[in-house]
């Protein structure tokens, strides 16, 4: 058994320079920046949709149509949708990478996650941009007041 070799002090350890992509740094920073914006957007969303007036009891098509007819709420909801979905997808990605150990499981779970997120982001975006607050043939009593006769 040979004696272990001990390097001279202050010569052994060299911190390697950061290499590869900075994607994980960008993801880390995104979680914090989007988090701050989401606190404002989601608290505002909850105050208007769940707290003011009759709370959850005033939610119906007319209420949503009245909001989504305004560019202000369109931009609000669009920003909230994209930031929340990307923030949540990256959070679940982190959890998958923490707990799933087999490479196949890690890949499969991530693919399912990304597919589901893409579908929800595309669907939500289409709804915001193609929304019709006064659909023809609908029961007028269910529509917002500005639809008229």
């Amino acid at each position, binding site marked *: 058994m040979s004696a272990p070799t001990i390097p001279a002090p202050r010569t052994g350890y060299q911190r390697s320079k950061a290499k590869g992509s900075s994607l994980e740094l960008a993801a880390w920073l995104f979680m*914090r920046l989007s*988090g*701050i914006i*989401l*606190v404002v957007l*989601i*608290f505002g969303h*909850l105050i208007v949709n*769940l*707290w003011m007036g*009759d*709370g*959850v*009891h005033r*939610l*119906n*098509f*007319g209420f*949503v*149509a009245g909001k*989504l007819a305004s560019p202000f709420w369109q931009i609000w909801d669009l920003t909230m*949708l994209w930031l*929340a*979905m990307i923030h*949540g*997808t990256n*959070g*679940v990605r982190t*959890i998958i990478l*923490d*707990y799933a150990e087999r490479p196949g499981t890690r890949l499969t779970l991530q693919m399912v996650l990304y597919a*589901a997120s893409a579908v*929800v982001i595309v*669907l*939500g975006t*289409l*709804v915001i941009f*193609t*929304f*019709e607050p006064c*659909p023809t043939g*609908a*029961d007028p009593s*269910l*529509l917002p007041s500005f639809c008229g006769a």
Partner: protein
Amino acid sequence: MAKASTGTLYRGREGMWSWVAHRVTGVGIFFFLLVHVLDTALVRVSPGAYNAVIDTYKSPLMAFGEVVLVAAIAFHAFNGLRVIAVDFFKGGTKHHKTLFWVAMGLWAVVMVGFLWRHIPNSLGGIF
């Protein structure tokens, strides 16, 4: 991920449990968000279809679900801001336990404010 069977410096207390709760609330909110975008997408189908589904959110059982949802969101929000404070501010790590209890205080204030409106709103028809 490390699989320590013995205690480590980071086990237990505010630091670990806030991390656990942040994950649990985060996953819960994410799955609700998937469902919530789908139910909102029904405004594109018909006013009747949207109203039929959104009316299910108005039952007493769902009113309790909304309390759990808001509790989870408020926790994730304030604990997230605490994480940011610990990451970016000098002295953040030293005072992380104080910051955690400040976050919990803000959480309690939000919950009282929410329940004050939500209980009469959602259970008003019963009492």
